[in-house]
């Protein structure tokens, strides 16, 4: 079977946007390079999210293999790795966005503080109010800027009075660094903003429900460097009140914004360490190969 065929097979079996760029399993030499356990320091004291032996399957295809990781309070964890390594899949299982995919199955222990995410008693609506998500492409609702931000609070009944809602909208937009740019046109459509502004609007919308954790799935991949810089600045500020897990393809970005960095490789979590350690003295050879640009 040649590589193209194999990729095709993967594509149909996985039903997922990301596909492996290189298939290391084809090369028997590298099979041995997987570590028995994640190297580095995947666990922290008193974590916000505790994830143990997480497996994610798409049908018969295992996308995530036994990933164990802690996400500490008020820290930024960057998930990096080559395309198709399962970072996004892993991230999406943290607020059960994968539920919408029929064939997707998640096993393992996933805890938000002391609550099991996949407990049948766990309400997914409540979970998503506590664990918000920012997507790869800016996806504002085709409504006004105000309604975009107010949607979450309205949904959960966080504000009873008009002025309370106004206040939430203003604070969220201020936190997202968008207030000064849009305060005069709150009722203009959110889709009329520029790409970077739209993404900040989406962040404002996410933090308007005051989540405890914010998941970001490559939030800057569709943005220019200036807009990216603004978002990165924003992530820095948000750490004060939120815990953030961010998937990124840009190693510079991971280096700039995160406290800890987790390196994923073909569905396995290879290494987790302080960001500085990962980028200066990576413990595992795969991590090193990736950050020095040998693949990915």
């Amino acid at each position: 079977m040649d590589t193209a065929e194999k990729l095709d097979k993967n594509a149909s079996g996985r039903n997922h946007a990301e596909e492996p760029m290189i298939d290391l399993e084809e090369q028997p030499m590298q099979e041995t390079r997987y570590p028995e356990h994640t190297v580095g320091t995947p666990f922290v004291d008193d974590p916000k999210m505790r994830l143990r032996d997480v497996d994610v399957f798409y049908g018969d295809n295992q996308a995530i293999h036994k990933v164990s990781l802690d996400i500490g309070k008020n820290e930024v964890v960057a998930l990096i790795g080559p395309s198709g390594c399962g970072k996004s899949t892993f991230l999406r299982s943290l607020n059960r966005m994968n539920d919408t995919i029929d064939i997707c199955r998640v096993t393992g222990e996933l805890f938000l503080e002391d609550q099991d995410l996949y407990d049948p008693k766990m309400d997914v609506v409540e979970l998503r109010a506590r664990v918000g998500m920012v997507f790869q492409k800016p996806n504002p609702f085709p409504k006004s800027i105000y309604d975009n931000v107010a949607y979450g609070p309205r949904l959960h009944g966080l504000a009873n009075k008009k002025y309370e809602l106004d206040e939430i909208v203003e604070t969220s937009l201020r936190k997202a660094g968008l207030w000064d740019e849009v305060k005069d046109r709150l009722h203009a459509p959110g889709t009329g903003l520029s790409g970077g502004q739209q993404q900040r609007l989406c962040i404002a919308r996410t933090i308007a429900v005051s989540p405890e954790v914010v998941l970001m799935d490559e939030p800057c991949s569709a943005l220019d460097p200036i807009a990216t810089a603004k978002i990165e600045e924003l992530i820095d500020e948000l750490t004060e009140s939120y815990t953030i897990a961010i998937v990124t393809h840009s190693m510079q970005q991971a280096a700039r914004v995160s406290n800890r960095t987790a390196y994923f490789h073909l569905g396995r979590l290879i290494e987790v360490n302080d960001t500085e350690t990962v980028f200066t003295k990576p413990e595992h050879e795969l991590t090193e190969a990736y950050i020095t640009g040998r693949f990915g």
Partner: protein
Amino acid sequence: MSKTTEQVRKSLARRYRAERRFRAYGIISIAIGLAALAILFTDIIGKGHSAFFEHYVKLDITFNEQTLDIENAGDPEQLNYGNYDGIVREALKARFPGVTERLQVRELSALMSIGAGYELRDLLRENPEWLGTTQTLWLLADDDVDLFLKAGEKGREDSRMSVEQKAWITELEAAGDTERRFNASFFSSGDSREPELAGIWSAVVGSFFTMLVTLCLSFPIGVAAAIYLEEFAPRNRFTDFIEVNINNLAAVPSIIFGLLGLAIFINLFGVPRSVPVLGGLVLTLMTLPTIIITSRASIKTVPPSIREAAMGLGASRMQVVLHHVLPLALPGMLTGAIIGMAQALGETAPLLLIGMVAFIVDIPTGPLDASTVLPVQIYLWADSPEQSFVAMTSAAIMVLLAFLIAMNTLAVVLRKRLERRW
């Protein structure tokens, strides 16, 4: 010059030729379509426009008590049974004093519509003091007279009327005692055996009630089915089976739905026949697949990112659908519904089977009154032997086309309007 550039230059002319050819095919196809449409419209308008007018004849009518057999004009009973045709005949005889022979008198009185008698009755009811007096009145001519007056030189020769009749009419025309008027009754009365009295209003009202029932049933059911299938149904063999069947139903000949309506609604559930409710039920079955398919297509066009965004904020599936998917998909759904309704409006075959082909003179007052619909009325008139019905048929087609164009325009306008809001 590199080899690639050389190759490219060589093939350029050929590619441009292919492009021009392709464009020409498109223009030709559109031209054929437009030509067919133009021919259709010219034919229909050419045949039908005369039906919007009818001819009246001026006569001096004497409301003679003896001929009418009415003593007291205030008595409704007597008014109802008066011999109005008699006074019309008297008036005609007075106008053409030479006519005495029985057969000729009959031919003479055939010049006037039987509607003229009813008109006189109504006039006398309103003006009882006219009894015993002579009034100069314009009365509705018979459809043959009408046709003769509308026809050209050759048409007049071909007219099936007798030589005497033709002479009388020509005389009336020369004296200026005939007049062409707008045919208001065409738009206000029901069907009739007499072309000059027949109108399409009962069919229009019947169509309206039928469409109302169809819309009220098929739109909510279709949209609900589409939302369930797109947003909630698990993807398995059973949903595939349903999908295949819906697509199949869209292609089933409509007459089958008529048979189904006959078997299920009339025979099993005992719904009265010939009524708009029944027609609406049958047309709902016919329209549903169209509405479901177009609604599903428009739901599919809602970007998944919007759904994810809403779900990521903690909206339930239901809220995602109600707040985001439905408003965004609504223009497409409405367009589909209106196109489905336009299809249903023009549908004849299934209605023939459920008795909506009846001869309906009265204007239906509700969806439970026996009625007919526009396309069936066209079918009925096209089938009628009287020559005047040819023009009436075309006129009715024009009315139906006007409704269809209005509905399709509405679909386009609605879609544009609603889309711009987002």
